[in-house]
């Protein structure tokens, strides 16, 4: 088993498992930085996974499908924002509602488009391609490690940097953080907190839609019922463990990716599959406990002085 772990294939498996979680974690981070827990990530990812299949098939291009999916993801973010910010709906209950609609709605839509209620196998979708980087792929070891991953994986890694720069180096990012830190203080210097939170939730929707697109156009090449499988929730945990920073979230998402990839390898062992399936969730739970504990101790220390 060890021999299968230290290979380029295993490295690729980690990246593959990390990609959707990473997009969703970044989405959770932006929303959290603006002061909103976006638990609707789960439903948004599920919707996006289906949209990806439908629109890449209609446009016969993965890029076209991706762009439309991202736009619709932004729209879902907008809807959540409308309910939370304008109609003052509790954000958790609004998220639960969206997730419910997603569970049923995706099946209905899939049925309408493919005539099948389990998978979208009959829709001729165009998954995102794998990317080979010229020259780099000829370099031994490094080439096989860094090349040949899905385009979305590279986009996810780029997104970490972009979101980091956005949140910490741009005026809009500063405003988002200001609103999340202290809404009233931000309002007092003339920032419209509602507008900023709208923007944050729309961006959150766009990012998680990219993760959803990868689920059905990369991780797998079709949509299956409930395929988000709790990834939106894991992303919430990952983001909170990473102190809602893009870099922190990235590290935790990779940890999850390792746990998932490890679970996939362990399938070949004699350990019961159901116990292996618990590994990623257990890892997240323990990680969350350790992180929260250390933060609590730090706060207590700071408060004690």
């Amino acid at each position: 088993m060890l021999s299968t772990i230290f290979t380029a294939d295993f490295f690729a498996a980690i990246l593959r498992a990390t990609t959707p979680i990473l997009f969703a974690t970044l989405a959770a981070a932006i929303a959290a930085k603006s002061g909103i827990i976006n638990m609707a990530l789960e439903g948004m990812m599920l919707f996006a996974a289906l949209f990806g299949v439908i629109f890449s098939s209609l446009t016969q291009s993965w890029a076209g499908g991706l762009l439309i999916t991202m736009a619709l993801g932004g729209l879902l973010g907008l809807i959540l924002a409308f309910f939370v910010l304008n109609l003052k709906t509790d954000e958790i209950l609004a998220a639960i509602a969206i997730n419910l609609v997603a569970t049923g709605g995706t099946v209905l839509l899939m049925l309408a488009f493919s005539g099948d209620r389990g998978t979208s196998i009959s829709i001729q979708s165009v998954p995102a391609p794998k990317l080979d980087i010229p020259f780099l792929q000829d370099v031994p070891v490094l080439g096989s490690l860094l090349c040949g991953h899905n385009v979305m994986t590279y986009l996810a890694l780029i997104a970490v940097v972009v979101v980091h720069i956005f949140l910490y180096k741009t005026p809009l990012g500063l405003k988002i953080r200001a609103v999340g830190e202290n809404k009233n203080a931000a309002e007092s210097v003339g920032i419209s907190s509602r507008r900023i939170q709208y923007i944050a939730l729309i961006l959150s929707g766009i990012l998680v839609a990219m993760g959803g697109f990868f689920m059905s156009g990369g991780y797998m090449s079709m949509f299956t019922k409930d395929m988000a499988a709790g990834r939106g929730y894991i992303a919430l945990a990952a983001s909170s463990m990473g102190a809602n920073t893009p870099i922190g979230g990235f590290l935790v998402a990779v940890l999850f990716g390792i746990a998932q990839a490890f679970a996939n390898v362990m399938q070949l062992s004699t350990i019961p599959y159901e116990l292996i399936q618990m590994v990623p969730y257990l890892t997240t739970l323990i990680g969350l406990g350790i992180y929260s504990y250390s933060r609590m101790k730090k706060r207590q220390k700071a408060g004690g002085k």
Partner: protein
Amino acid sequence: MNSMRKFEVLRTVMAILIALLISFVVIFFVSEDPFNAIKWLLTGPLTSKRNFFNVVEAMIPLIFTGTGVCIMFAANQINLASEGAFHLGGLVAAVVALKMTLPAGVSPVVGIFLAACAGALFTAIPAIMKIKTSADELVSSLMINYLALYFSTFIMKYFLMDPAIGSASYPIPEASTLPTLISRTRVHPGIIVALAVAVLGYVFLYKTRIGYQLRLTGENQKFAEYSGISIVSVILISQLLGGFIAGMGGGIELLSPIYDRFSWTSLLGYGWDAIIICTLAKKNPLYTPLSAFFLAYLRTGASIMARYSDVSLEIVQIIQGVIILFIVAQQFLSRYKHKMIAQEAKSALKDEEVA
């Protein structure tokens, strides 16, 4: 106060109507014969005795998890693990039924009691994590639901599985199953227990000292803390009790005439439904049977519709989602609320003048 209550009722009704309207629009899009589909959705449960009692059967698990969630949410503990607690409750009841030889009347009682205990211990995990590590119960409870699912599937596959079936346990022995109350239906004594639990939940939350402390903490934790309430015990008691009730519901559901084996290899969703029930009931356990009846009626109607028309069952989830959105939207119809309050104030003023 009276006008506030009237307003809440009005808003709930409006939310339900809007949700139904949206679902009609969806039905018009997907169906060849939309009127037929809508007819079955709305009147299906009333077409036969069996269909109607299907509604009653479907209410039972909803009342349990709904009441459990009411107690946790009343204390503002957003623990979503009742899903897993219900699942584990079912597993434990199956284990007791299959692995312990107990006399006929005793077996289901022991099974249901242990199922409830398992549920309580399970939902206590996020509570203990919150107390010991300050980890948010929302996130941790989302994670442990998956642990409950895979753990139960593991136990079923390795210790209870009937090789002849492959994906389910051995049949639950006669001595452990609950009897039917009404002939030719599957309504079982669970409905009586469920109604009792809803009433007891109400008494606990609104008529006891601890219940008051729970609600006060839910309204304003800082204030509760300053008035000397132990927040740690509120966190623990609310979630232990919530899980106890959800686990009991899971145990009863599995031993009911509806299931003859433990065959739950995916989460059943009663934990999420519970949040709808709790929202409709405004966190008051006394109203959970009513909310459960509504949801169960809708579900049964949808499944009858799915059988007799070309619209599939999943439409229910859309209706449910939209209902929640509008019921919890505080600004929804708020202008009307203002008007109502203003009118009442005006008429009160007039009364005073007359006097």
